């Protein structure tokens, strides 16, 4: 009898914590599911959803491949951009980032404090994280920066160089382990940070008054000049990337800087609250997708 009560209360306790833990991400889950169903509808058969590509002509539709699985969005626009995809597959036969992964491994083993801060390197899918003690969002770049500072080291640039190499190592270990993006929203404060990030993403920015969503939600699959726009879904899964344009590796923060300039905006600092909260929102949208970094992009 008592045993039964205990069992029931344990079940209840677990039950309520689950409800509580669940409740902080209720809105985020709704948003994520809506986004997944929007993109699956849009891309499972682009030619059948012409209203979602209002200005595309028949040649544009010929270049749009159907996307069958939600996981494919980790490839960005190469999930549906036929021409881009064949170039991507070609370059991927000899990935140009392998030296960066090796350099990252060496940094991991030799930089004072790093191994202690990150005993498990398969963590690329866990960031950004909401740090309950600090009451703020911590991105992987910020976590590395904090670790360097705590160990009396000179900080690294957050856009390229050592930090990109180390993040490439984390990403490749995470990918090897078959792990997925797993972003949590553990508290009310975290949910508020998520909401602020979402608001940033959907607001018109810069003197061109474009929002990120104009190009990467409604605009995804359409073109700016020749560039086929990639979807928000999957945007954070594969960084850092080796960009042909950069002739090198860069972090997510570096990539976003370029887009902010496209909006006519003065880019925000990597590591700022603005950047961290936007990345928190973006990464949550990719929850459940496989970690797939590092990768290559044009």
């Amino acid at each position, binding site marked *: 009898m008592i045993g039964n009560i205990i069992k029931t209360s344990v079940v209840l306790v677990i039950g309520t914590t689950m409800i509580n833990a669940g409740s902080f991400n209720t809105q985020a889950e709704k948003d994520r599911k809506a986004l997944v169903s929007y993109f699956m509808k849009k891309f499972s058969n682009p030619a059948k959803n012409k209203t979602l*590509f209002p*200005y595309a002509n028949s040649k544009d539709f010929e270049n749009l491949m159907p996307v069958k699985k939600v996981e494919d969005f980790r490839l960005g626009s190469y999930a549906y951009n036929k021409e881009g995809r064949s170039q991507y597959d070609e370059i991927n036969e000899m990935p140009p980032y392998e030296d960066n992964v090796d350099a990252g491994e060496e940094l991991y083993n030799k930089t004072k404090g790093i191994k202690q801060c990150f005993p498990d390197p398969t963590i690329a899918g866990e960031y950004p994280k909401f740090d309950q003690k600090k009451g703020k969002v911590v991105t992987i770049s910020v976590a590395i920066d904090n670790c360097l500072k705590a160990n009396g080291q000179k900080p690294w640039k957050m856009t390229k160089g050592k930090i990109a190499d180390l993040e490439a190592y984390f990403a490749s270990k995470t990918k090897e382990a078959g792990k997925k993006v797993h972003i949590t929203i553990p508290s009310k404060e975290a949910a508020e940070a998520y909401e602020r990030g979402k608001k940033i993403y959907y607001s018109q920015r810069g*003197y*061109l008054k*474009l929002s990120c969503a104009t190009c990467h939600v409604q605009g995804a699959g*359409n*073109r*700016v000049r*020749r560039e086929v726009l990639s979807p928000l879904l999957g945007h954070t899964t594969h960084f850092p990337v080796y960009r042909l344009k950069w002739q090198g590796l860069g972090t997510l923060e570096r990539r976003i800087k370029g887009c902010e300039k496209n909006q*006519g905006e003065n880019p925000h600092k990597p590591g700022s609250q603005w950047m961290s909260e936007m990345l928190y929102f973006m990464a949550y949208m990719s929850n459940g997708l496989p970690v797939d970094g590092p990768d290559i992009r044009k």
Partner: protein
Amino acid sequence: MPKIKLFLAITVGIGIFGANAIAGDANLVKEGEKIFNTKKIGNCLACHAVNGKNINNPGNLGPKLQGLSAWPKQALYDKVYNPYTTNPTSAMPPFGLNGVLDDHQIKAVVAYLKTIK
């Protein structure tokens, strides 16, 4: 009601073009074309193909521009100045409102748009 009147007054106010500045001015058309096709200025080709003109890899975030020669100059001016007046959810930047293009530049762009069949 008074609001509508004020709005009309403003529209008409902007509407008084320097008539001889625009009329058939080939240089102005050229200037407008350059603004349209230059990344650092109008960069309109990022989003628009143009009927009957040879544009280098135009985007398709906006419609292919056609039949604009039939539009009143004022409607074209308003569209480029602030597309939200006719389409509050437009994805097109408000080039006048945001100060990217000045009055003269918009008039040049309008002169170019008027050549689009």
